[in-house]
């Protein structure tokens, strides 16, 4: 792979930030369409949030393909973990979920694990 130009780096950063944010927002919409405890499971299939979430996942996946064309897989995989950071932020802002030390610790451990998995695969 050739070294990235300044323009490429800007593209990578923008695509990375938007794709992880969109995929995190998609899971928020899926949660919104979720029937929850005792809810009618079929109702989610007529919820617009369910399809909105689905479409956003497809967009994020498309952006991921762009990233894979510009960066090696062993880098794209761990960078995708940014999604979990967005999710922690969004679920705090939109759903009032607490950000706790344990959640941050768990997230950091997962990200280290994903980096190791990707590093091992890139060899």
């Amino acid at each position: 792979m050739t070294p990235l130009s300044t323009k490429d780096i800007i593209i990578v950063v923008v695509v990375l930030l938007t794709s992880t944010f969109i995929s995190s927002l998609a899971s928020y919409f899926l949660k919104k369409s979720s029937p929850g405890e005792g809810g009618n499971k079929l109702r989610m299939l007529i919820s617009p949030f369910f399809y909105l979430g689905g479409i956003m996942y497809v967009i994020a996946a498309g952006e991921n393909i762009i990233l894979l064309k510009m960066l090696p897989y062993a880098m794209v995989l761990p960078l995708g973990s940014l999604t979990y950071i967005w999710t922690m932020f969004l679920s705090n802002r939109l759903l009032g979920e607490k950000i706790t030390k344990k959640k941050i610790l768990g997230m950091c451990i997962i990200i280290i694990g994903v980096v190791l998995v990707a590093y091992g695969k890139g060899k």
Partner: protein
Amino acid sequence: MIESLKRNGKGIILLLISAFSLALGQLLWKKPMENLDLALTFSQGFYGVWMLFLKVLPGFLVYAVGAVVMTIGLGYGELSVLQPINSMSYVFALILSAIFIPTEKISWITVVGIFVVIAGVIVIGGSSKNDTPVN
């Protein structure tokens, strides 16, 4: 920890199933995508597109089931606890490819990474509502 597993338990199990579907869908798409020749596909007209559709259909159906299971699962707990469980799809993908594509080598660093991811999921899954927030 027990309290959290009780509260998020159903969600954790459903998210694990959806992470597995994600990994299985990826595996089902691997072959058709690797051998994909778009020029050839379109030169064959409707027949080519139809054959491509049939090839990607199994993976797509598995993904769709995974999305439905994930949506139901997210109703059983906090998003910030359940969504990171998606990372288990990397673990399932490696296990599946070790079983079905034995020629693909897995390095020991990756194996260590798998256990680290699992440890992280356990820490997040065990986070309690009574934990003090940092904000």
